[in-house]
């Protein structure tokens, strides 16, 4: 305790300050002009405990941490009590790393991984278009290896599957007929070839006999 001025020392502008700086991602940069990471679109796959609320935990985490999710699918696996969540996310690189790590911390998340570029990806879309020109609709559906599911006097509903780009192209092609309604599942994906989609993942026996004979393994 002093009875005079209180805090002392050189004023802010009199203090030496280094020239270095960090970008908004906290990365030390030199020179100053170094670019920040651009957003990147990628697929994350997670094996989770198939319990009530797991989807809301995953979605809630993404929302409150402002992770940009393009699509999210969920379904059972061959292991009883497990489900696979497939997420398409678009973030700059440190963000993708963050999503993966934050999701990994969720108790129901057993394992999570980012898929390589060569991963097999597919989604399904249902398209309801105007039925005035059934032949042409049929032709476009054929062109995209689709199926016609419902034909009525006013509407035709078709189903298409494929990777994101094929689906985008197909949707464009159907626009000429007038799309009345559209429902897309979002992408689901598996790693290419024998590679594991998610680290440590092992096949289970749920839903036999879809699993091949075990003695060949």
């Amino acid at each position, binding site marked *: *305790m002093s009875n005079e001025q*209180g*805090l002392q*020392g050189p004023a*802010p502008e009199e*203090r030496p300050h280094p020239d270095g*700086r*960090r970008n908004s991602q*906290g990365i*030390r940069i030199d020179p100053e002009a170094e670019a920040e990471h651009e957003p990147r679109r990628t697929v994350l796959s997670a094996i989770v405990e198939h319990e009530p609320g797991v989807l809301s935990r995953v979605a809630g985490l993404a929302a409150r941490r402002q992770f940009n999710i393009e699509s999210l699918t969920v379904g059972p696996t061959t292991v009883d009590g497990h489900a696979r969540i497939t997420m398409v996310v678009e973030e700059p690189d440190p963000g993708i790393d963050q999503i993966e790590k934050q999701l990994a911390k969720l108790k129901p998340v057993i394992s999570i991984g980012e898929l390589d570029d060569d991963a097999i990806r597919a989604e399904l879309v249902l398209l309801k278009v105007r039925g005035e020109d059934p032949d042409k609709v049929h032709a476009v559906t054929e062109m995209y290896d689709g199926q016609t599911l419902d034909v009525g006097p006013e509407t035709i509903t078709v189903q298409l599957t494929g990777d994101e780009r094929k689906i985008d192209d197909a949707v464009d092609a159907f626009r000429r007929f007038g799309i009345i309604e559209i429902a897309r599942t979002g992408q689901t994906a598996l790693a290419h070839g024998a590679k594991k989609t998610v680290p440590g993942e092992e096949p289970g026996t749920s839903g036999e006999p879809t699993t091949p004979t075990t003695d060949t393994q």
Partner: protein
Amino acid sequence: MSERTAPPTETDAPTPADDDPTETDVTSGATSVVRALENAGVETAFGVQGGAIMPIYDALYHSDIRHVTMAHEQGASHAADAYGVVKGDPGVCLATSGPGATNLVTGIADANMDSDAMLALTGQVPSEMVGSDAFQETDTTGVTAPITKHNYFASSSDTVGDVVGEAFALAAEGRPGPTLVDLPKDVSLGETDREPGEVRAPATCRPKTNPDSHEVEAAARAIERAEKPLLLFGGGVVKGDATDEARAFATEHQIPVVTTMPGIGAMPEDDDLCLSWAGMHGTGYANMAITHTDCLIAVGTRFDDRLTGGIDTFAPEAEVVHIDIDPAEISKNVHADYPVVGDAGRAIEAIDAEMDQTPDAREWREQCLTWKDEYPMDYAAPDDEPLKPQFVVEALDEATPDETIVTSGVGQHQMWAAQYWTFREPRRWVSSHGLGTMGYGLPAAIGARLAADDDETVVCVDGDASFLMTIQELSVAVREDLDITVAILNNEYIGMVRQWQDAFFEGRRMAAGYDWCPQFDKLAEAFGARGWAVDSYEEVPDAIEEALAYDGPSVIDFHVDPAENVYPMVSSGGANGKFALSEDQL
């Protein structure tokens, strides 16, 4: 106010068959829950009764667990949080469904932000009524999902004990945090004779405690070649019980240390190497060291914005070694050039073992000492001005033993307490850092008191506005006869807001002051505590001495200078090295 089922009066209370040992056997979900708590070593729990949690309380009737009835569930959550901080084991709080559970929310969020291990048990309406908007129904697991490590909705009387055990273990596992189990009344009441199993965290939540050798090697090389190394000890050092390893490392390699606010006490603040805590209101020398270090060795910190200031100017020259048990903290806010994922103590020891030489940092140490001289922590106390709050903190520190536990609310008083109290040991500074919860101090002092040894002193440095937010808990301190001393630094303002209004809102003091402030000494007496009011320097020593000597709850209302501000100050988003020493430098 929320409606609750009236507690039974003495005459209504059932007569327990205390002598019959079978009474304590597991007979229901609720008794299984209590058994799980006992198996986990729980000695004390904090809570408030209510309809849906009544079966759990009924099971506690036969237990040795000490239950402390709090005045408000928020108080229960803060008390449990602080209990856990001081004790080193998860604190436990209980509340009923609906308003009971939502009142816990602030304390759960607080524990989550500060990585404090805590287990909350909430009653819930019977399973069959869930989703029907039943009386006192709230989607508690939905509400608390974002602020817990994990929460559970108990679905079976047979397994509810296991779930509670798992939740308790999970709270303490790896990076600590709060967990919650929601207990529908039918699950608690349902019959079971199943003993809960082993108390252990779920398999999907086991952290990596042993660091990878390649990470350790890279970190060791970076530290060896540093010319201006600086250790940054966060709350993870305290909560990871890594203080011994951390201090040994700093001392052996003679590396200066700054701490975060939750890291206060990780290094003795009177050690030459310790530069105290950095950040918005941290010491000038800590912030200068952060600004100029070429190798920041951060242990158990999440690089909160109140520590870093503007991220672009944070430790701008430093390679960052970041040790943390939570991989998600690596490069979350500040890029880690050398991440080391693992238990803090083990990682420090592994790095130490890997290092072939100590960094040559003699000049740097001298520079840090120069900054200590150049920017001393001090305040002016002219004779013609009112009592200075900093003086009160120093006087309290002087009058109490070295290992005194200090709790605080949030605001100016909190900063002065952290700045002017000299902490020498971990788990002695108990405050609300990340969430910044006004009102934390008094219930935290209750929790800390019950966790501390009888011969330890517990002081709550509070603000007038913070104290008013949870003042009802004074009734608990009186009823439980708890020896705590509350020192209110009363400036009749929400002082930090007033300071910001003066600095950044051209002095428009909207909703920051009171037209009338209660006489806290009288209020304390009305509660059954002892109270003092202090206006001058001369009265300070006697009031402190008397309050400390009184073996029960005491409140000293220090009327301090309402114009006093907290400095140094790094403006929000500003550069740490550009801290202001007075308002005209902002």
